[in-house]
């Protein structure tokens, strides 16, 4: 009987190994090729921009680009743990921390657009035309007065968009902790951008959103943009290769090459045009030429990184 159990176990194990190998193989011969692992914020991935960029990159170099998409919070966390080679995020405060703590090589701004404040068509709090911080303050005041009528739905997930929301409360002279616990009008969704938009639409509430996700969902929503292109709503995307000094196993060379594609003519043109053929207008603006506007000074300004940047950092 022991023999039989052993036989069955051995068979099951062989089956398991075969399946695992086959699953790995089905990744188009992964394993032989070099791998570049990127963790990215959802907006770049969900719009499909990054997939386009990957195709170009994979044609240029013999490499498999593997993209893991999540909020800026988790994307940075992957970088801190050395699980990815490059991060593409949009939260300048945490980006600077990431580099100061030694995890990141350098910050390159490559694209931007604007956050928008969206809400129900009838705009019950009357924020249309205001500046963003003023609008946020008005939503809060109106929300506390009539919580059934005016609501704000927050991402509440430590994403880049959530971080910007906190900055806006601060700019309005309010304390975020007090705001979030001040009543039923403030809805802490704890979800990604898409689900948060759907929730805001169901609740007839306001929310802060990036333009690209809003355009993707527009058809399913009873929401309209109320505040757009306000300079306090600037949304800058930056690329940071993970530093080989702290994480020797990262593929820094490839990460640098990918950054250099993003900031090249080809990359910047793609960013500036992306979305025109699907929704009729570009979803992002190229960082090239607008560095002063978006607050990316000197070497952060859409410039190629030096080929030797990695070995220099590792040494």
């Amino acid at each position, binding site marked *: 009987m022991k023999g039989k159990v052993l036989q069955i176990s051995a068979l*099951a194990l062989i089956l398991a190994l075969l399946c695992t190998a086959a*699953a*790995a193989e089905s990744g188009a011969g992964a394993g032989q090729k070099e791998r570049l692992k990127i963790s990215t914020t959802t907006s770049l991935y969900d719009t499909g921009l990054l997939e386009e960029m990957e195709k170009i990159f994979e044609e240029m170099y013999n490499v498999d680009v593997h993209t893991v998409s999540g909020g800026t919070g988790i994307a940075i966390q992957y970088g801190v743990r050395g*699980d990815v080679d490059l991060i593409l995020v949009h939260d300048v405060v945490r980006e600077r921390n990431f580099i100061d703590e030694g995890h990141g090589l350098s910050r390159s701004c490559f694209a931007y657009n604007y956050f928008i404040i969206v809400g129900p068509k009838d705009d019950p709090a009357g924020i249309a035309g205001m500046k963003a911080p003023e609008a946020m303050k008005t939503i809060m005041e109106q929300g506390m007065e009539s919580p059934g009528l005016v609501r704000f739905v927050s991402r509440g997930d430590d994403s880049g968009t959530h971080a910007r929301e906190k900055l806006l409360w601060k700019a309005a002279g309010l304390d975020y902790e007090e705001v979030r616990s001040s009543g039923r009008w403030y809805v802490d969704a704890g979800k990604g951008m898409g689900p948060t938009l759907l929730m805001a639409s169901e609740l007839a509430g306001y929310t802060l959103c990036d333009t690209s996700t809003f355009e993707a969902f527009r058809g399913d929503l009873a929401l309209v943009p109320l505040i757009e292109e306000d300079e306090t709503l600037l949304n800058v995307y930056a690329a940071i290769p993970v530093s080989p000094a702290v994480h020797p196993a990262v593929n820094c060379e490839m990460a640098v090459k990918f950054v250099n594609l993003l900031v090249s003519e080809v990359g910047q043109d793609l960013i500036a045009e992306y979305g025109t053929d699907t929704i009729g207008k570009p979803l992002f603006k190229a960082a090239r030429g607008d560095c002063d506007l978006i607050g990316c000074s000197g070497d952060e300004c859409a410039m190629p990184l030096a080929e030797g940047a990695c070995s220099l950092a590792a040494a």
Partner: protein
Amino acid sequence: MELILTLDPAVVEITVRSLLIAVASTAIATTIAVPAGGLLHFHNFWGKRAIINIIQTLYSLPTVTVGLLVFLLLSRSGPLGGFGLLFTPGGMVVGQTILIVPIMTGLTIAALSGITDQVRDSAISLGASKRQAIFTIMVEARAAMMAAVLLGFGRALSEVGVAMMIGGNIQGYTRVLTTAIALETSRGDIEFSMALGIILVSISLIVNLLVNRVQGRWWT
């Protein structure tokens, strides 16, 4: 619907990958859970009740918790980081195996307990040794044990926590049905998500039908 009917290559690829990973996890988990369940059922020792209690508690282990745990193990900064298993299909198999071993072990014990002592007694009275008696009970319990394996397979195929956190939902590499559904939903493509969901349910149905048929034909 069109995507299913026309067998869109991307959809087929994702479906095949889902199946391979779930089968691999279930196969490994079976080699752990069935002997472990047998050991626990046929031996009496101090603390046995406590272990069974723990196993039963682990039935309801949330998949994201297992995902987080395995992520911390396999991450470059974790104890097993050197193997580079994070964001690979191999890592997903490790995570799903950990996820389904408790429920398969528990159900194996339940399957064996379902065989009355009479079977053992009559086997022994017919001159069977203890080993032969254990074998007889396992043979008698095969249908219920098959159900344990199937349930494990179903959980591995349908879970999203481990697949997302360990696999990372990488296109063409670790994207499976459940993570693709999560992604397409967040992209706003509800129809595509529904199509994938239908495939997932259909697979479960087909596997169940097949197993019923096999059991009916050859085993009883």
